[in-house]
């Protein structure tokens, strides 16, 4: 575990979070004694195999699920208050755009719910459409866009109300690798320009190492943290760094963590 510079505010303080639920085959520990601290402006990836609790951890932080024990402070408040205060934007595995709304109306959905004025909605919609390079698609419907474009709209929607954090649950998992690389670069640009805290769940080791300032390696049965790895690649990195020795060393460390957590066993 690394120490944070005192000047950076902590946006997530999790202490001994556990989540246990009953199934027909007995109790399952989705999360077991997970403790974590995330500072403002970091890009934190959660990586691990299915069932390691990474999505569950994200959902607990988002107050979409409640832990059975442990304490959690998000942005200095309880998770529920953080949700009610609209502190984060959530990007799911699927774009989850409403097919009966145009792209522009989809972007305005959270703004309508949160009570922004009409003029403010229009300004924000334009700004974030441009930020994800989708200017001109305002009047289209979701099914007229490709999967990658829909996911970009989903990201723009999550940013539109200026939340402190961005929570992303395998947002690029359903896309092919070429689109994925492209979107990784775009996400990096977005992070640099908006300076938000990003929590990112992924299956892909290269993706995690490329994007993050910190990588949290998790393993299943029970869900727990195996390793926390700091990376500080230069801010203006491009996809080429994926072949450099430093990159490969960190990727190897991630892989070792996964192996230690029995992620590669049956």
């Amino acid at each position, binding site marked *: 575990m690394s120490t944070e510079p005192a000047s950076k505010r902590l946006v997530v303080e999790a202490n001994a979070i556990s989540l246990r639920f*009953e*199934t*027909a*085959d*007995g109790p399952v520990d989705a999360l077991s004694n997970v403790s974590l601290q995330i500072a403002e402006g970091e890009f934190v990836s959660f990586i691990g195999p299915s069932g390691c609790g990474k999505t569950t951890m994200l959902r607990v932080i988002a107050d979409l699920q409640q832990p059975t024990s442990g304490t959690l402070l998000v942005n200095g408040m309880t998770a529920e208050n953080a949700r009610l205060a609209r502190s984060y934007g959530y990007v799911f595995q699927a774009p989850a755009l409403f097919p009966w709304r145009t792209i522009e109306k989809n972007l305005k959905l959270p703004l309508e719910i949160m009570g922004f004025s009409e003029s403010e909605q229009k300004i924000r919609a334009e700004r974030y459409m441009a930020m994800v390079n989708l200017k001109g698609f305002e009047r289209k419907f979701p099914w007229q866009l490709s999967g990658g474009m829909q996911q970009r709209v989903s990201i723009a929607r999550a940013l539109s109300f200026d939340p402190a954090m961005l929570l992303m649950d395998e947002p690029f998992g359903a896309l092919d690798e070429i689109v994925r690389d492209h979107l990784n670069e775009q996400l990096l640009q977005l992070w640099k320009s908006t300076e938000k805290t990003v929590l990112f769940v992924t299956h892909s080791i290269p993706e995690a190492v490329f994007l993050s300032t910190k990588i949290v390696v998790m393993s299943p049965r029970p869900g727990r943290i195996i390793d926390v790895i700091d990376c500080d690649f230069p801010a203006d990195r491009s996809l080429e760094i994926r072949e450099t020795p430093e990159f490969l060393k960190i990727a190897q460390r991630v892989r070792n963590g996964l192996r230690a957590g029995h992620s590669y066993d049956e």
Partner: protein
Amino acid sequence: MTSSSLTLPARRATFFAARNAIVERYVPVATMVLALIAIWYVAAVAMNWALVRDAFEREETPYTVSDVLAGTMDAERPLLPAPHQVINAFVDGVFGYPPLAPRSLIYHSLVTLSATVLGFILGALFGIALALLIVHSRVLERSLLPWIICSQMVPVLALAPIFIVVLGAIGLQGLLPKSIISAYLCFFPIAIGMVKGFTSPDPLQIELMRTWSATSRQVLWKLRWPSAVPYLFASLKVAITISLVGAIVAELPTGGEAGIGARLLSGSYYGQTIQLWAALVAAAVLASALIGIVGLIERGVNSRMGAH
């Protein structure tokens, strides 16, 4: 962890899960039914109140509130019979007379049922035959199918009176015209349902059959029929309820004497409210029984086809 220490808690967990499932499924329905019956009683009191009180006034006998209350539960020609009155009349109609007596509900139910079942079988056979023709002939599909779909929008039940009258004029009475109406009514939903069913196989599966040079007949028996089974039972359930309604409505025009529809009609002509309600309950019982039988057959077929 060894297996033995896990099985006991696991079994108890399963037991509680199963019991919770039963509770979850039946308690809400039971509550609703009880609530409906309670509302029914209250409504019966409210609606029959004026009737009963006026009857007391006419006879100029002294009465109390509880007299009127008791009266609403027991009126002879109530506006809304109380549940127990309906149940009593129903039970009386079923068990109180020999099964083939003209006042027995069983007799009337059998009359309606015979027309329903005969019409249903005829309609189902024709509907399936038509669906087979449509699926195998492009001409019929393009020319006939739109008309079948249009016929769904037409109140076909309105044809019942003329059928009965016209067929009566040429000497056909009784079971046959009623069955023809029922058959006509359930023939269309079955045809449409089966067309959907026969065309439901994935194009990939049909292509697979083509790679094996399967004939049309083989594709029909080995692929289309099995795929159509869910659609078959869904449309059979719809058809049997329509067939029942058709048989009941067909009994109306001639001012018929036998059958549930006739019973409804005479109950309304002579102001015999309770008899009317008992006939309705009989119709409901028939409908549920028919759907139940189709459901049972469906479950049998499904389990033989590998569903769990």
